């Protein structure tokens, strides 16, 4: 029995070999390639890129393959890899107004400049299992419209012309970097948004849902949701101008929130903001609701004790790599601390029993 806990090294090697075998599954079934995952599991790839804070669809697909489809494990692989990368430059802020939109909808206006573009969405599909996919049939080619080179203006911009929505002042302040500096509280909005965009989708979704059910209600409308590609530009000091280095796909959500005014602010609409890598609209909407809930202080609202309003609660618990690590570490050996607890409980029980005996004797 005593020797059973020994031999850790051999046990680890054998476990890894078995894991590799399980990952591959039945060798009679063809192996998945990384491009297959990248192309056909794109939303999983997007989630791994967003929560892994690294825009690289090939590496995210590789991580999903290596993690056997466990997306949090895949996020962790990407984060651990990301740590080792040098920081070469910071890009100029991306211009989502110039986004080549695949999807752009507003829930607040029936029609608007730039139009409503439904795009590739599950929204109006009937959730019926499509058994034809089991037969691996060919897909019908979708009709396409010519691309328009025009800028697509933001809905919140229209509201702003009338002064109906709070001013979002632009700032050239350098945002803090969550991955290079320890988290400091209270956090500014830029830091909160950073934490939320890489936060766990399920956690952020749950918090956002809780605000809708009354725990820090913010009365949100989706002013606009847009998905598409934007160019990434980097300033090259030697050249004196910025150079386009690539394109990334983003989902941006701006909520418009009813606001009756507070001690410090007039009645107006207020903003919540979500921006996430890839097509990740559930996450972007949830993020914008939580962002808005966290802004209670600057808008002069009351803190009602709702979890989604509580910056420290949200920021310290939204990271799934941290959360899963600490949660799962309790399966590591703890027999030293358990032994000390065992001794303590035995001692306390002995004292309770002795006291009971004494009481009975009296």
């Amino acid at each position: 029995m005593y020797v059973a806990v020994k031999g850790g090294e051999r046990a680890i090697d054998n476990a890894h070999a078995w894991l590799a075998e399980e990952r591959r599954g039945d060798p009679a079934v063809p192996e998945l390639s990384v491009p297959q995952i990248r192309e056909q599991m794109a939303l999983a790839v997007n989630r791994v890129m967003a929560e892994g804070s690294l825009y690289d669809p090939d590496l995210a697909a590789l991580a999903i393959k290596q993690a056997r489809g466990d997306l949090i494990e895949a996020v962790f692989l990407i984060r651990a890899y990301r740590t080792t990368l040098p920081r070469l430059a910071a890009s100029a802020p991306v211009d989502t107004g110039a986004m080549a939109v695949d999807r752009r909808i507003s829930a607040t206006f029936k029609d608007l400049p730039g139009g409503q573009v439904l795009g590739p969405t599950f929204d109006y599909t009937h959730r019926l299992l499509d058994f034809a996919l089991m037969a691996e049939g060919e897909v019908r080619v979708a009709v396409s419209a010519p691309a328009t080179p025009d800028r697509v203006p933001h809905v919140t911009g229209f509201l702003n012309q009338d002064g109906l929505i709070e001013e979002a002042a632009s700032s050239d302040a350098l945002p803090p970097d969550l991955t290079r500096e320890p988290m400091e509280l209270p956090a500014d909005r830029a830091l909160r948004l950073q934490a939320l965009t890489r936060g766990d989708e399920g956690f952020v979704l749950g918090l956002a849902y809780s605000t809708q059910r009354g725990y820090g209600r913010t009365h949100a409308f989706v002013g606009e949701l847009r998905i598409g590609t934007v160019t990434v530009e980097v300033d090259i000091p030697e050249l004196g101008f910025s150079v386009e280095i690539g394109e990334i796909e983003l989902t941006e959500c701006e909520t418009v929130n009813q606001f009756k005014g507070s001690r410090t602010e007039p009645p107006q609409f207020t903003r919540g903001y979500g921006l996430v890598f890839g097509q990740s609209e559930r996450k972007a909407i949830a993020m914008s609701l939580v962002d808005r809930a966290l802004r209670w202080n600057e808008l002069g609202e009351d803190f009602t004790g709702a979890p989604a309003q509580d910056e420290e609660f949200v920021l310290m618990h939204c990271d799934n790599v941290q959360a899963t690590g600490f949660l799962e570490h309790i399966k590591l050996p703890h027999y030293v601390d358990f032994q000390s607890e065992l001794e303590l409980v035995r001692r306390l029980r002995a004292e309770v029993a002795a006291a009971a005996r004494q009481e009975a004797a009296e």
Partner: protein
Amino acid sequence: MTDQAYNFAYLDEQTKRMIRRAILKGIAVPGYQVPFASREMPMPYGWGTGGVQVTAACLVPEDRLKVIDQGADDTTNAVSIRKFFQRTAGVEVTEATAAATLIQTRHRIPETPLTRGQILVYQVPIPEPLRFLEPRETETRKMHELEEYGLMHVKLYEDIARHGQIATSYDYPVKVEGRYVMAPSPIPKFDNPKLSGNPAIQLFGAGREQRIYALPPYTSAVSLDFDDHPFQASKAPHHCDLCGAKNSYLDEVITDDHGGRMFVCSDTDYCAGRRAAGQKGRLWSPEPQEAAP
């Protein structure tokens, strides 16, 4: 990707520099929790990422590294961390406490007294001793600033009122040089006296919580108590069944399903050393059961 693609001891030099700065600050202000920009490591948070980063920042090629978990060199996570540094730093490793220049530990302080020049690196899950009394970091930092430790004393007092004794058996808080209350990581309180006045440098790394703190050599670390309820380092009231040690911390091992159990040193190096020197415990036979069936 080959191992050569990584820097010595995995982390790049800039990151190590940032960690060393935090360590130096920690040594300058014993017991104070220094925030640092903890990196994602290739092992999960909770597996010792804080300790691993501190070790990586301290290692030099001449070091001899020992890694223990629960006092043992051969538990799976100790093996895994030791292998990580063998692979990324190529340093010599050892199981002998006295031969090691740097020891990374989880949940124990070795029984063999440490000496000058050694570094002991602790893996820390929750660096904040006040965390379970006050969940907010913004509040606990203020409490440390103001040296406001009344809440902790109230908790200890309530333990005594309810149970007749302080019901904390591991991660037992200490006061460092009369200033900061510090969590010694989940070592059994049996190990607490070894924290104080230790000739080795003791460094504490909490990766997920992004904190580093330190006890420089010969620093006083007093376990919190009351005059009428003095601190007591406790262990199982037995001797080691393998080496017969009377004063080492013991693990309880269940040997059958009829309530049979044995007690063995949690510090495997200490126990093996005593047996090699001819010490015998109750159940020690010259032919140990080396291989499990």
